[in-house]
């Protein structure tokens, strides 16, 4: 049977077919749907981990115990998981282990566009790069075979376009059960220096063997066409090259990309007039090919920034451009993503913005769409604020700058707990805020250790953020409803009044959250809508200041209206209206 699947759906299917027993991940665009889809196969034990390091470690544990295992993450997640990856590469595996890295060229939903092909080189493990969904499915099984054959974890490198594009996949293969490889105590599982020295030797030997595999691998193949131009490419860039050159070039298509098959490349280069390396982001293959003494064209023509596409290749390599309709695009208004109507973060930021001499140190989540001064990475909100505050406190210019560190519930569990410990341990005086919206929202509503449900939506312990903070030594903790601006204002003043770290938790469910019974018991069923009384509205636009996308100001009537479909009845606008012109009522069935 043939079906149209995204690359992420195909990876999940490939894991199922290849007998994977354990899979773990932390959600992150563009990788999130891999685990969401794996969760639909009952034969695979799958879970959300608090972060990517933990996901990778758990998958390593499953592999050592003999089961085939998979961990998936976005590119920056592999930075978090780099520690177990590098030593895991020395130790090797028992059951096959594949680690999926989903890179994001073009930064569709990321803070950088790092090229994780470098990780295969740095950690000395094999790497596969699928170009479409069929390959994404097939490569999972091949990666697991290679992992077992060469005793190393294998990296499967995807990119946004491979993860989120759909193409046809043959689903005729069924699952092959792989009973766990029997576990036996082995020296390699205990990498003390004396053992690791030997393991390093093994890594070097295995890489040499892997290089030979790369030379003979059917994943690295030549397609002959015109021989004036020979193109070496991998991943989705190969598809773009085929789109632009078609039969007018020959191709060395690489599916297994580390170590590179240098003999094969040399033979291919010798049979074409001009060699072009088409790769997205960094000149990794190009540099290695040039270092082997093979001349080629690469990044002097093709940009190393941003996502590639057929147009960019056509322009940079052929100097050609498609004719487009000419028009004045400047009249098109920007449509940036915004905090949703009813988003509980809105009430918090509405009050925070009014405070003077405050530096907002945020991190990665929906709340990044709200105004902020600084952000760097998951869990960085408190520690970055702490470091900055130390310097600000040493200034003597009269106005005291106050740092407010901000993160979400899932981010707190990801890596914010150590960040909080830093603030406590090193006697900080920052205000820490956890915006607890009862779900991992940005990536599309995944469960986390604070929601009380697992990936399979089974009940589990609901970790309490205030209890964690208390155990870490935070003495001043307050929880507020962020949609009550008066309470938020009081709490912010309270939180800034200490010379010790204080924690403010805003607790209200994401406006898009599918409410659980526990949520309904705590928050009510929330079936409300806000409406404007046009008689009372004076057009002062105080409600517009909340930034809610459901409120519209009409210049002709000098009144506002509220879109009844978008509105969730959060009541924030009603509380900021000086004329009490906004009221709330029960939502009718729409």
């Amino acid at each position, binding site marked *: 049977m043939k079906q149209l699947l995204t690359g992420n759906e195909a990876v999940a299917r490939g894991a199922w077919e290849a007998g994977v027993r354990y899979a773990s991940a932390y959600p992150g665009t563009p990788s999130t749907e891999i685990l969401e889809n794996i969760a639909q196969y009952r034969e695979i034990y799958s879970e959300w981990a608090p972060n990517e390091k933990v996901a990778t470690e758990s998958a390593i544990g499953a592999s050592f115990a003999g089961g085939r295992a998979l961990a998936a993450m976005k590119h920056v997640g592999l930075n978090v998981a780099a520690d177990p990856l590098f030593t895991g590469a020395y130790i090797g595996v028992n059951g096959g282990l594949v680690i999926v890295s989903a890179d994001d060229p073009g930064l569709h*939903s990321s803070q950088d566009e790092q090229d994780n092909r470098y990780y295969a080189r740095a950690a000395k493990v094999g790497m596969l790069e699928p170009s479409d969904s069929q390959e994404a499915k097939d490569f999972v099984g091949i990666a697991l075979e290679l992992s077992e054959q060469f005793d190393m974890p294998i990296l499967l490198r995807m990119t946004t376009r491979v993860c989120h*594009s*759909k193409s046809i996949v043959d689903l005729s293969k069924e699952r092959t059960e792989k009973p766990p490889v029997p576990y036996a105590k082995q020296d390699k599982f205990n990498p003390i220096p004396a053992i690791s020295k030997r393991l390093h030797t093994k890594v070097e030997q295995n890489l040499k063997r892997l290089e030979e595999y790369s030379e003979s691998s059917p994943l690295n193949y030549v397609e002959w066409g015109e021989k004036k131009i020979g193109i070496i490419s991998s991943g989705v860039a190969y598809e773009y090259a085929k*789109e632009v050159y078609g039969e007018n070039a020959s191709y060395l298509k690489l599916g297994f990309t580390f170590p590179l098959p240098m003999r094969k490349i040399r033979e291919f280069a010798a049979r074409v007039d001009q060699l072009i390396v088409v790769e997205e982001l960094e000149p990794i293959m190009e540099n290695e090919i040039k270092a082997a003494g093979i001349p080629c064209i690469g990044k002097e023509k093709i940009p190393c920034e941003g996502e590639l596409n057929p147009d960019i290749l056509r322009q940079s390599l052929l100097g050609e451009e498609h004719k487009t*309709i000419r028009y004045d695009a400047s*009249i*098109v*208004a920007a449509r940036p993503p*915004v905090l949703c109507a009813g988003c509980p973060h809105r009430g918090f930021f509405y009050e925070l913005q009014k405070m003077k001499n405050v530096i907002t140190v945020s991190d990665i989540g929906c709340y990044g769409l709200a105004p902020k001064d600084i952000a760097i990475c998951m869990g960085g909100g408190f520690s970055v604020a702490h470091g900055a505050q130390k310097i600000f406190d040493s200034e003597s210019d009269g106005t005291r700058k106050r740092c407010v560190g901000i993160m979400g519930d899932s981010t707190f569990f990801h890596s914010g707990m150590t960040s909080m410990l830093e603030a406590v341990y090193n006697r900080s005086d920052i205000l820490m805020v956890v915006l607890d919206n009862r779900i991992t929202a940005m990536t599309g509503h995944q469960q986390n250790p604070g929601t009380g449900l697992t990936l399979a939506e089974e009940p589990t312990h609901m970790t309490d953020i205030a209890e964690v903070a208390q155990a870490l030594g935070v003495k001043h903790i307050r929880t507020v409803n962020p949609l009550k601006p008066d309470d938020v204002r009081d709490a912010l003043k309270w939180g800034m009044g200490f010379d010790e770290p204080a924690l403010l938790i805003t607790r209200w469910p994401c406006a898009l959250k599918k409410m659980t019974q526990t949520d309904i018991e705590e928050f009510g069923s929330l079936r409300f809508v806000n409406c404007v009384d046009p008689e009372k509205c004076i057009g002062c636009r105080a409600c517009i200041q909340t930034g809610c*996308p459901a409120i519209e100001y009409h210049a002709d009537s000098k009144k506002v209206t509220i879109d009844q479909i978008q509105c969730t009845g959060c009541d924030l606008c009603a509380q900021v209206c000086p004329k009490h012109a906004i009221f709330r009522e029960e939502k009718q069935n729409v």
Partner: protein
Amino acid sequence: MSEVKNILLCGVGGQGTILASKILSTALVAAGYDVKMSEIHGMSQRGGSVVTQVRYGDKVYSPIIGKGSADILVSFEAMEALRYLDGLKKDGVAVVNDYRIPTATTLSGQETYPADCIEQLKTLVNTKVLDAAKIATELGNSKSMNIVLLGALIKLMKLEALDWDAALTDNIKPRFVTVNRKALEAGMAAVAE
């Protein structure tokens, strides 16, 4: 060898572009075409601008369409058609829904929503204007606006012979199939010459 056809669907997060493109691609695959479809997840449910690209033919390589190469642009929102117009071939056709959704910047008054965007579009390219919301509401479910637009696309791309019933049944809950079948037909009729 049949040449590759390129379709661009654009709109605003939550308008159902993804479901429409799923139904479209289901029918194309069933008809034996090679199909690739590309969309970007992540920000779409936060009211951002969304675009889905569908390509079909004997053999499709790139999942994304270059500038000036779409045969048809179907815009689920009026102004969005202008945002993605440079993706359309000069002799391509634009289908635009006469339905306006303000943006964060127009709501706050930082920018003005271009009131004449559909008129501008008409001067630039072969344009078919539909009031899909009105058509869908008359049929009994305003949410099938996306299927009305899909119907227009099917007619203009001459894809009427494909098995749309099966594609609808595969992708839509049984109780909504009938209203959506009507929506599809109404969309086709709306752009009939």
